[in-house]
């Protein structure tokens, strides 16, 4: 944009100068000739105007505007998506929609960068990111980020405009809802050797996600992530990145009800009812990730990548049953939690969960790409088979495959997903009629 404005200004100035000179020459044909001093004065005036315009342009070049639009058509196998797995809850077999309409305003001034990043679609306008980044050392070696921004996670940090599949894995969406959160993060990214650049991110977040109501409580969630490339050499056609991350946090449960799974059944628990805080719904997970990049085939690069996440999340639970009433003893034989009769209206349920995803991607030059993805998410690892009685406890694997073609700024993606549900007493079957096909057109600027 800066270059275009600059060209326009230069052309305008040249045009102005030409007209001025032509005008001076015409005047010269009349009564009195234009002196060289007058022409010089005109040139100086134009130069001053150019300097002024340059000053304004200098400020404009600090502002960078980028973004992308994803318009798509989705087709579902049936009108309602079983167990709420569809992207949208309203029943429809197929629909056109603006999946994402992103515009990023980035202003860079010296060592500071500020970003405003709304998402605009037919569903409204949502502010996705708003943060300030302080570059404390050159070459992004140490940065502090404050505001609403991506949590540190591989699949979260990959922009949806660059991701090979249309959506992130189920477990990523569950463990990192909204992808972004409000908080503060330090990133240390030193260059130890040319091909060895480990990255450490440590952040403190509210925990609820960027678009959730703020969690005004003393409990902040801590996320730490360390990634590093194996030092195989910059020239090596095989590059391997590995990483691990830890999420430790929670949300206070102020209601009388906190549900957990004990012996395959949902049970009502809570701490001693002496204060407002009745318990802490743990948000905890540990992730291991890896990416292998292979530049071995003449047709293009190959990527194999994946991540395993295991932990727990508090979610809205179902009403407690009478079976949950009683005393549960801990492994040491003592009463570690007290069970009371009478469930509260809005219980919170903490579930132990586990999920993973894996991608296989083959590029064909820079113009096309094929991808295969499998992701699995067990929403409650303490229940299986007939014990599963709610959609919040079911395990689902999704096989996705498709491809993209890239034409200049445009990308066209065809993606098909086949979810497979674990056998359960909630109505799950091996393969319900819930496949989804997406045709997406993306324009990035």
């Amino acid at each position: 944009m800066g270059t275009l404005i600059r060209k326009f200004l230069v052309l305008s100035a040249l045009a102005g100068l030409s007209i001025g000179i032509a005008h001076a020459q015409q005047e010269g044909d009349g009564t009195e000739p234009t002196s060289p001093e007058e022409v010089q004065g005109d040139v100086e005036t134009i130069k001053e105007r150019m300097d002024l315009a340059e000053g304004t342009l200098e400020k404009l070049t600090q502002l960078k505007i980028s973004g992308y639009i994803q318009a798509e058509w989705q087709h579902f196998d049936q009108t309602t998506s079983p167990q709420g797995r569809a992207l949208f809850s309203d029943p429809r077999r197929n629909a056109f929609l603006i999946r994402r309409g992103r515009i990023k305003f980035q202003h860079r001034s010296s060592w500071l960068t500020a970003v405003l990043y709304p998402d605009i679609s037919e569903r409204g306008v949502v502010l996705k990111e708003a943060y300030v980044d302080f570059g404390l050392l050159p070459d992004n070696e140490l940065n502090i980020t404050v505001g609403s921004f991506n949590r540190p996670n591989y699949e979260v940090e990959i922009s949806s405009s660059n991701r090979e599949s249309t959506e992130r894995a189920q477990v990523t969406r569950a463990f990192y809802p909204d992808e972004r959160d409000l908080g503060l993060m330090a990133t240390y990214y030193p260059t130890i050797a040319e091909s060895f650049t480990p990255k450490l991110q440590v952040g403190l977040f509210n925990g609820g996600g960027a678009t959730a109501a703020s969690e005004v409580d003393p409990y902040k969630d801590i996320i730490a992530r360390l990634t590093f490339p194996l030092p195989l050499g910059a020239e090596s056609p095989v590059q391997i990145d590995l990483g691990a991350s830890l999420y430790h946090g929670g949300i206070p449960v102020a209601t009388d009800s906190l549900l957990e799974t004990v012996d395959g059944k949902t049970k009502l628990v809570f701490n001693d009812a002496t204060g407002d805080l009745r318990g802490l719904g743990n948000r905890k997970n540990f992730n291991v990730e890896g990416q292998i990049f292979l530049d071995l085939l003449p047709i293009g690069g190959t990527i194999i990548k994946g991540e395993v996440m295991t932990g727990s999340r508090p979610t809205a639970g179902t009403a407690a049953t009478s079976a949950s009433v009683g005393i549960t003893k801990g492994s040491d034989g003592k009463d570690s939690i007290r069970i009371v009769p009478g469930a509260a209206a809005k219980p919170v349920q903490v579930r132990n969960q586990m999920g993973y995803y894996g991608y296989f991607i083959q590029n064909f030059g820079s113009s096309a790409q094929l991808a295969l993805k499998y992701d699995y998410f067990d929403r409650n690892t303490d229940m299986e088979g007939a014990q599963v009685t709610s959609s919040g406890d079911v395990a689902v694997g999704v096989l996705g495959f498709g491809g993209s073609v890239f034409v200049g700024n445009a990308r066209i993606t065809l993606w098909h997903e086949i979810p497979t549900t674990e056998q359960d007493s909630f109505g799950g079957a091996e393969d319900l009629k819930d496949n989804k096909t997406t045709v997406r057109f993306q324009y990035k600027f």
Partner: protein
Amino acid sequence: MRKKLTFLLTLITACIGLYAFMPVDVITVKGSDTMVILAQKWAETYQSKNSGVSIRVTGGGSGTGISALINGTTDICNSSRPMTKTEKQQLKNRYGSPGVEVRVAKDGITIYVHPSNGVSKLSIGQLKGIYMGTITNWSQVGGKNARIIVYGRENSSGTYAFFKEHVLGGYDFGGSVQTLPGTAAVVNAVAKDPNGIGYGGFGYAKGIKVCQVSTTDGGAGIMPSDQTINNGSYPISRYLYIYLKNRPTGALKSYVDWIISAEGQSVVKKTGYFPL
């Protein structure tokens, strides 16, 4: 179900395969303004001997070229600075390769002053002071009593980034630096301004005086030349690079091989840069 799946898979593969393997005879080159003249000379010379290949060269700065490479809108990126680790990571995530870096020439960042300027030598420390705004008068570096008018490049320029890292030690430029869109504009401004100073590629050094550079304040001044740049004694010399997304094949590989061949390197010398 299985039939539908097979049909879908076949359809996706066929469409993408057909598109990906369409013959390409146009090579796009984008990036460093410092290298534009060199890249155009390479393209002209190569096309004159290989009529089936069309090469389109544009500038915009190293940063712009690298962004274009990551976004897939150019085949070759010219860069007067190495790619950063973040840029390599972005390339790796998109194409499965951190990119292929090819050193194609050497250059000395040349300090331009007006031909009438009495100052012929500046140290790295003095240059740092001038560009950070702590030295503002030519008399502070042995010249006349006149305000120093400082010209530089935009932050999308690789020369800007290299100068910032190797002369300013990573610190920011001062507020008085007037940024110009290309090296030619910097040379032009200095040629017309008796109190001006600028920096840029050696290949553009015409109509101005080239200033010697020393590593220390009292040290010997060194002019950029074939010898001083090749033996590393010129303090602010650098490599010029081209970057590709993956290991090149076909017409792209032939072109890159030609650039680093003796014939391609002779173009480097003719254009005023320094061959490998």
